[in-house]
């Protein structure tokens, strides 16, 4: 199923685009809806800031994946930046990088403008893959504090697990920092505290 909508180039459209995708994905898991809405919010914001024009959101839902494309008339290719902690901007695409399985850009079909797209593979949601609690733990607590709280089942999300794995695969510096020490810390926690992330039935 493919749906699309055009939004006028004003800031209120960003929230409207989030609600549009949340409605379109209403039958999917909350994790996918939250992640997709957040990524659309980022891409719509980029379209407004850089193109200052109308933008279009196209959503393609299949059994395997959700693909979303945000198209605007602006030029220039969005690229990942690595801002300093004190730099307020430059983080939006990191959210797309971490929450999607794939993303990219392409030039507009008529030679003007551009599209930024992302795909979420529905099969990589953790309910089906049964990933280990290590991945969850390493991502769940970058601050090293209160791990028992952050690995609680109701606090975890499919996306958190998905981007933990992505982060490991990509060597994401944010996720990598201190990760091993933290994992060891988790190993020392009482089993009740660390095993919540396991789903033995899946393994």
């Amino acid at each position, binding site marked *: 199923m493919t749906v699309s909508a055009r939004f006028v180039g004003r*800031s*209120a459209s*960003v*929230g*409207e685009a*989030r609600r549009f995708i949340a409605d379109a994905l209403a039958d999917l898991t909350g994790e996918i809806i*939250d992640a997709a*809405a*957040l990524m659309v*919010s*980022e891409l719509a*914001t980029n379209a*407004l*800031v850089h193109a200052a024009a109308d933008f279009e959101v196209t959503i393609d839902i299949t059994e395997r994946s959700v693909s979303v494309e945000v198209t605007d008339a602006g030029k220039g290719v969005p690229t990942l930046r690595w801002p300093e*902690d*004190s*730099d*307020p*901007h430059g*983080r*939006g695409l*990191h*959210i797309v990088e*971490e*929450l999607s399985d794939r993303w990219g850009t392409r030039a507009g079909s008529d030679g003007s403008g551009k599209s930024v797209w992302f795909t979420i593979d529905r099969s990589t949601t953790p309910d089906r893959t049964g990933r280990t609690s290590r991945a969850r733990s390493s*991502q769940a607590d*970058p*601050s090293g*504090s*209160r791990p028992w*709280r*952050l690995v609680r089942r109701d*606090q975890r*999300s499919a*996306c*958190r697990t998905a*981007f933990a794995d992505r982060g490991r695969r990509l060597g994401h*510096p*944010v996720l990598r920092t201190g990760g091993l020490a933290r994992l060891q810390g988790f190993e020392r926690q009482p089993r009740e505290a660390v095993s919540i992330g396991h789903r033995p039935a899946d393994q």
Partner: protein
Amino acid sequence: MAELGGKGTTASVEGSVGPGGVPVIAVGGEIDISNVESVRAIIDGLLDGHSGHAVFTVDALTFMDSSGIALFVQIHNRLGSIELRDPTDIVRRVIDITGLTDTFGVIP
């Protein structure tokens, strides 16, 4: 309490004073590019003349994207120290992804 935003993205900001005179600001609702400047203006007003630590209770903040991150980075730059208490899962996720968990005090 200040209510910010129209029919779309809305946020609420409410200030109080905690132990030791530390500002405690409750931020709820949603923050994106459409209302972040309004939220910032209210918070700036609440923090007028204050320097040092401030606490933000964000348990009712149901959504923020990198616009909200920019807001808290700027407040952190100005004050030197902030604490975000009880973030919702999605807000926590955004902070984690953007690598600011250690910069902000995020509790828990």
